[in-house]
Structures are given as C-alpha cells and as structure tokens.
C-alpha cells in the first residue's frame, strides 16, 4: 500500500505564508522558549528523522572497515602495528570503538529523542481518533474512487425497503470489522458510513514505540549481565566464582553476588570428523561436550549432579546462565622434572589451535624448576606429517600420529614482578634457548608416553599418555581435549526479543492493513424502486479497494435476496475510476482533516491550513 499525498510532511509555515502572499517573511525574535520550541519542532520533524536515519546508516559503515575493540581486539593491535601513523588518528575519533563512540551515540540518541517526540503526540491524536465516529456520508457518492450502483426494481425490493437494506449493510460492515454509523439524509435517504483500519496507525505506533523499547532494554538491561570465558580440560570441573574465570567482563551494574553458585564438570568431549567425503576430509561435523552440573539445594549444598550436553548451536541454560561451547582443542599432559629429578610441573596444558587440522601452540612455564626456571614453547600436531619444505604440520584433526615438539628455554620467566602474564605467551627476553631452532639441540619431539632429557642436564620432560592401558598403536584418546566455554548472563535478552516481536507485528499491521471508508446509501423513489449505492475511499492508493466495495455490494445484494440480474453495475465501467471529487468536497476526501494521524509533529501547520492550501 503506498502512502497518500496527504501524508507527506507538511510544508514549513514560511513557505505557506509566502505562497499565499499574506504574512511577511520577517519573524519576530524568538526568545529562549521560542528557540527551544523551534529546535524541538525541527528535531521531531519527519525530515530530521529521515536525515538521522540515513546518518545512522552512514555512521555505522566505518565500524565495518576497521577492526573494533569490542569484537576483534587482536585485529586492533595488528592494525596499530601495520599502520603506526594512521591508527592513533583513527583512535582519536573513536574509530576502533565506533558503536560506543560519542558521535555514533549522539546520532542514535538524537534519533530516539526525535522518535519519542514524534510518537507521543501521534499516540494522543490516535487515541482520540479511535473514539471518533465515522464521518457523515458525502452527498455525491458517485464521485468517489470506488462506486457501485444497484437499481432494484419495485417488484424485487425487499419488505422494509431502505431501512431493512441499510440495517443489513450495517451488519455486514460491522462483521467485516468496520466501525459504523447510520445517517438519515436530507433527501429522505438512509445511509451507513463505515470506517476501518485504525489498526494501521496503531501498528505504526506500536512499531515505533517498540523500537524505543528495544533500545532501552539493550541500554539498561545489558548492564546487569556479565560474560566470562572458561577453559576446562575434560575430566576437570569449574565452580562459578569470579576467580575461576580466564577472563570476565561484568556489566555496569554487575554485583558479584549475582553469580549463580554452581559447579560444572566436563565429563568428556567428542569431536567427529568427516572421513568419507574426500572434498571435506577432516572437516568437523560434530562437537559435543558432556557435562554434569551441580546446583545448590535448599541447604546450600551442591546436590548430586544433573547430566547435560553442550553443542555449538545448543547452549546449556543453567539458572540465569547460558553456557556456550565456543572452542576446543588439545591439552597435552606434560610432566617436567628438574635437575634434581623432582617433579616441578605436571599438568594438562591447553594448546591453542592454529588451523582446521588443529596444529596447536602452547606454552609451558615451570617456575619451580631448580636451579633455573624452565619455559617451553610447544607445537602440537594431532596427526603429524612433513610438508615438502620440511616443516611439520598436522593433516588431520584427530589423534592419528600425535607429536609434541618443544623449544626449551631456561632463565628468568619474569613471573615474580607482579605483572600479570598471559598463560598463552612466553616472554623470551631474559631466557636462554637450550633446544630448538638455531641452537645446538634441535626441538624436542615426543609421542605420548615418551620422555626426553633436557639439554645441559636441567631435567627431563615427559609427554604423558592419558590412556596408558590402551593398545600400543591406539593413541586415539592419548591426549585429553579441552573446551572453551563462554558463560553469559543477560537479563535483558527476553525483553529485547519481546520488543523485537512487537516491532515486527507493528510493522506488518501498519504496512498491510488498509485504511478505508465505505458508504452504503439506500434511497426509495416514488415508484417504489430502491436505489442502492456503494462507495469506498482509501487512504493512499489501495489496489483492493474497488474489489472490496464490489464484494460488499454483492454480499449485500445476496443477503437481501435481490436477483443479481437486476443488479446492474458490477461491471468495470461503473466502478472504474472517475476523476476524484474536487477539492471542495473535503468531507469525502481522506485529507488531514479527517485523518488526524497524518500530523506527525506538533509544529507543522494545522490541518485546516493545509487543505486551504490545496484549494488555493
């Protein structure tokens, strides 16, 4: 349905005045209140809304061109390294935080203020319009967009004549959702005036209001949530307290007591890979983490566990928490003995996957080794193979030929300075490489179960086999898996969804419900014949209007038992468009005067003025 011309944003009063040639263009000085009102009018005008919408679209573009701190912090670091000159300049205009930047926020806040300023007066108007009665039946219906005429011969006129006919029409229209009102014409005719489609404006208002709802729920509700990341190796468990998270991002209003007290253990993790389709050989086709959750009972003790499963598209909903499976990899179990033969390190170390075949990198820090601390950077290949270049890589993500390759350093790991260090990186500045590339001893290569002495007698390293009892050539479970879980709480989510559904519902209603008026007029002539007229008018061009009026006429005729052959006037000729009634028959036209909802903002010229314009 397209919009009618009467719906176009009104002209500025100045243009109007000068067009009429009456009021002078010079205006009295505005004063503070005047200026405030002036700006408010500007802000809530349709044109400003349009401008701000387009500005919002343009403003969103830069955030897709440069990496954003919120979604790609590493990308931002890389960008700084790659563009050392440009990056600080971009940073100064918040180009790496576009969606929380002052300027982007300004655009959408202005837009939403404009929206509020626009929705409130319209709602008031609409509320009044909802209780208004359908307008008087125009005198000359034949001038309307859709028109049907049926002349009923005296013999066929139903008992009761015009009164019965109008009563029937009223009932038909009512049943079709029209609001109706019966008029007694001056010429003794009876007519029913009907209007429907208020829902259209209601839908539009619901749509716009729900948009505000979305923004508010996102803005406020998001502050109460949090999100954290946790890496768990199969077999381990995790208690939901702040300390156990790898990283944690609290919302503005977050309070530590709102962490649900639960414990979650990762019982097993299975990944399946494609084996039959050669084009996709080794592609992951399923990840599944089997977990057990322990929730507190009435006394606060963690009860016996509830088994559950987490998959990529199937998060685990636990109380107010949602737990997502975001990543996985291998966590080789490594034991390091120092020079004295004492176990200085024994742990499953999560290695970060670098490619689809899970070639992974990990770091082992052994601060307790004596006499010197030991650090290692390791590559793990689940299925090791040699490239033509001689470099090693993995050619399948599962454990077919697992190999761990370690470069070993000794010296000061720099852990005592109180500076937090990532467990995934090793600062080698103060370390001496004792095994690896470019030193006498090459990297140490181990298969599960193997041990190798470290050069210089500093100790030994063992790559433990997690399933030592399995057959010798079955290494398929020899290295445990880890998963990285995202744990979120977002209390606003349900609100956002509810408002989003209202947005969609409002949109559908406002775009597809036609708003129209229909009149049925019955007049009896002296000879006892009955003249039935049906007419319709739509707001905007409404391709189904003619059909709708025809249908009403047909149903009405059938209901009254009028033989169809007497009902001339169902042909196209008669219903076809006649030039619309002249501007003076304003009672019949869908002008602003009748459709109050067309006034978007308080500041635009009043209805009467614009129809006066039309006449001028």
């Amino acid at each position, binding site marked *: *349905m*397209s*919009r009618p011309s009467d*719906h*176009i*944003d*009104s*002209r500025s009063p100045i243009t109007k005045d000068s067009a009429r040639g009456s009021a002078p263009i010079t205006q009295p000085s505005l004063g503070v209140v005047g200026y405030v009102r002036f700006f408010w009018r500007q802000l809530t005008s*349709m*044109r400003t809304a*349009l401008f701000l*919408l*387009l500005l*919002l*679209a343009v403003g*969103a573009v830069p*955030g*897709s061109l440069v990496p*954003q701190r*919120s*979604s*790609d912090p590493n990308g931002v670091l890389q960008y700084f390294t790659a563009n050392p000159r440009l990056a600080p300049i971009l940073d100064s205009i918040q180009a790496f935080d*576009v969606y929380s930047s002052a300027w982007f926020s300004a655009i959408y806040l202005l837009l939403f203020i404009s929206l509020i300023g626009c929705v409130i007066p319209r709602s008031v108007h609409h509320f009044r319009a909802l209780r208004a009665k359908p307008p008087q039946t125009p005198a000359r219906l034949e001038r309307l*967009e*859709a028109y049907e005429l049926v002349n009923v011969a005296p013999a066929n006129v139903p008992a009761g004549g015009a009164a019965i006919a109008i009563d029937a029409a009223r009932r038909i229209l009512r049943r079709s959702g029209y609001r109706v009102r019966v008029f007694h014409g001056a010429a003794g005719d009876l007519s029913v005036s009907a209007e429907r489609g208020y829902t259209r404006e209601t839908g539009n208002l619901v749509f716009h209001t729900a948009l505000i709802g979305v923004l508010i729920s996102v803005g406020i509700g998001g502050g109460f949530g949090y*999100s954290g990341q946790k890496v768990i190796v199969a077999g381990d468990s995790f208690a939901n307290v702040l300390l156990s998270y790898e990283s944690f991002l609290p919302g503005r209003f977050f309070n530590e007591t709102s962490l649900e007290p639960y414990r979650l253990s990762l019982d097993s993790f299975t990944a399946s890979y494609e084996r039959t*389709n050669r*084009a*996709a050989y080794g*592609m*992951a*086709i*399923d*990840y599944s983490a089997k977990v057990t959750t322990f929730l507190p009972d009435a006394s606060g003790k963690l009860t016996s566990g509830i088994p559950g499963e987490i998959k*990529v*598209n199937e*998060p685990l909903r636990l109380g107010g928490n*949602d737990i*997502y499976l*975001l990543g996985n990899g291998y966590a080789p179990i490594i034991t390091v003995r120092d020079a004295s033969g004492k176990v200085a390190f024994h742990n499953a170390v999560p290695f970060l996957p670098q490619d689809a075949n899970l070639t992974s990198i990990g770091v082992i820090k052994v601060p307790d080794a004596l006499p010197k601390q030991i650090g290692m950077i390791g590559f793990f290949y689940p299925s090791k193979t040699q490239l033509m270049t001689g470099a090693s890589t993995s050619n399948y993500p599962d454990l077919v030929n697992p190999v761990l390759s370690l470069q070993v350093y000794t010296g000061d790991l720099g852990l005592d300075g109180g500076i937090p260090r990532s467990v995934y990186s090793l600062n080698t500045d103060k370390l001496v490489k004792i095994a690896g590339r470019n030193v006498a001893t090459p990297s140490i290569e181990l298969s599960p179960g193997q041990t190798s002495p470290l050069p210089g007698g500093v100790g030994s390293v063992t790559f433990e086999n997690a399933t030592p009892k399995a057959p010798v050539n079955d290494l398929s479970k020899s290295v445990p898996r880890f998963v990285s879980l995202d744990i*979120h709480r*977002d209390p606003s*989510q349900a609100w*956002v*969804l509810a408002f*989003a*559904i209202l*947005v*969609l519902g409002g*949109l559908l209603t406002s*775009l597809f419900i036609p708003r129209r008026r229909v009149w049925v007029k019955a007049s009896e002539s002296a000879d006892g014949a009955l003249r039935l007229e049906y007419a319709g008018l739509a707001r905007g*061009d409404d*391709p189904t*209007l003619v*059909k709708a009026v025809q249908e009403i006429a047909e149903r009405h005729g059938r209901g009254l038992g009028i033989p169809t052959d007497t009902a001339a006037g169902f042909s*196209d*000729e008669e*219903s*076809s*468009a006649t030039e619309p009634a002249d501007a003076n028959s304003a009672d019949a036209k869908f002008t602003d005067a009748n459709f109050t909802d067309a006034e978007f903002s308080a500041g635009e010229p009043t209805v009467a003025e614009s129809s006066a314009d039309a006449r001028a």
Partner: protein
Amino acid sequence: MIELVFPSVVAVWSAMGIYTLAFIGFTLDLAKRSAWAQQQKEKNPLLAGELASAQRSDQARSQGSVADELAGQGSVAQGSVAQGSARRAAGSGGTAVLDRTSTASGAPQPLSLRLERIAFSLTVLAWLVHLTSVILRGLAQGHVPWSNMFEFSLTSSAIIVGVFIAVQVWQNLKFLGAYITGFALIVLGVGTVNFYVDIKPLPPALQSAWLVIHVFVAILGTSFFSLGAGLSLVQLLQARTAGVPARALRFLQTMPKAEVLENLAYRVIVVGFVFWTFTLIAGAIWAERAWGRYWGWDTKEVWTFIIWTIFAGYLHARATRGWRGARSAWLAIIGFAAVMFNFTVVNLFFKGLHAYSGL
C-alpha cells in the same frame, strides 16, 4: 547421494544457457519497443502516448483501478478510455496488432510482444531447470543448499527469478525481464565460476534450524529489494525522459509512468523490508544460540543493520515532503547496492564471524 552432484551442475549450466536466450529476447524486446514507439510517433505524433497505453490495455482491464497508472506518457488515464482507444485502434487496420486480445482472433502480434512472450517463457523454463539444480544440490548433500557463497548464489538467483515470475500474477512487470534475467545470469555465472565448492557436510556452527529460516528469508528480502531497485531504476529513467519524448531510450514510452513505477516499487520494497526485519531478528536469535550474544556488531551484522536503516529511510522518504520521486528511488537503489555489497565484498574481504563463504 553424491551422484546427484553432476546432474545438478549440468542443470546450472543449462539454466544459464536458457537465461542467456531469455535475456537476449528481453533485450531485443526493449529494442523493438523503441522502434515501435518511434514508428507510432511518426505515424501519428499525437497518438503515440495513447497507443502506448492501448498496448497495455489488457492489463488495464484486469486491473480496474490501476488502469490509469499504466498509461504511457500521460495522455490517457482511465481503463475504460484505454480500452476504447484499443478498440478504436483495432478498427484502423495498421494498429490493430496493438491489442493483445486480438491474438485470439488470429491477428499478427507486434514483434515486440511476441519477443517478450517468448523471452518470458524461456525465463520460466530456465527457472525450472535452475530450480532442479538447486533441489539436486540439496538432495546430494542432505542439507539446505545455501550454506556457502556458491550455494547462496545458486539459490538466491533462483528465488529472485521465482519471485519475478510469481509477481506477474499480481502485476505485469515483464518489462523488467532483461534486468532480472541479466542479474540472475551474473549472480549464477560468478557464483558457479568463481565460488564453486564441492559438497561438504555442514560445519557445527551452521547446524541449526535458523540456517534454514534466517538465510532463506534474507534471500526472499533480497529478491523483493532487487525488483524494487529495478522498478526504481526505470522510474528514474522515466522521470528523466518525461516530457522529452524524442530522446533516447524510447522503449520507456511503452512502460508505466514514473509515478506508477514509484508506487509499484514501494509495494515491492515494503514486502522486502518486512522480510529483512525478520532476517535481522532471526539472525540475532541465532547469534545468541551460536555465539552467545544476540548482537555484537560483527561486520555482517553491521551491514544488515545498515541496509535495514537505509530502507527504513526509504519508507520515511516516501512520507516526507521533497523526498518522494527521484530521491526515494535513489535510496531504493542505494539500499539494494548495499545488499549486494553485503553479499560480495563483506563476505569475501571483511573479517568476521560469518565466515561461511566456503572459499
């Protein structure tokens, strides 16, 4: 059912062949329309516009109230009059061919209309073959055929043409045939030549009912936006050549007036907008399930939002003084360009979570 892959590929190429023929047909039709418009004007300069409307009178009859919209260069405005002129024309020999209904009585058609009809039939045929290919691809891999860029090209072009064909029931928009078949050919050609990938199982991230819903609705939205952009394009051309009948692009004289095109574009885009709104919401729901947040300003999300905002702007423009007509038409075209950008450049060159190009 890997053995279905080969027939699917054969079907793609066959469809492209037939689309090419249809495209040629539609283009020749445009050329003939130009020639025809010229001829009419030479014969009877005063009547040219009227005859243009007469040519469309069969529509005018079936459309009743929209009859006036279909008149050519603004002379005749009403269904009944248009019919009248067609009848009048029928009486005057040479122009009898203008009335389509006269085909039934055995009179020869103008070449233009015959070409259009042939081209449209070819389009339907190509589309059936195309659809077969989509279905075979889906059967071969056991999941919906829109999980990577090749499949997205394959399916979206099929749905775009499908929507174009279906829309004819509502409105005769065959004059967009060259645009739509040309567009489908490009999408299909680039998709098949540059983005082709063998069938693969669905990665865990895409194993969701939302893949079916979200992406399918996005394609539907895209189809309606593409029609809207086509109509807006013709609208702009029409507005530019209005009142200058002797100018180039004479075939425009056989097409609806700018205002009519604007209304048609609006109706089509409104449908697209509803689909797009749904896509946005469904995408957020899916993102929440798969990535743990419903909105994260991922590049793809950003562009989907930008497109949505542009079209919201378009809808507002239609209700804003001074923004109707050409300006809103430009917004419709820019919006569709953004859709295309989102699909091509953003998929291929921008980094983000939506890494499903399959390349």
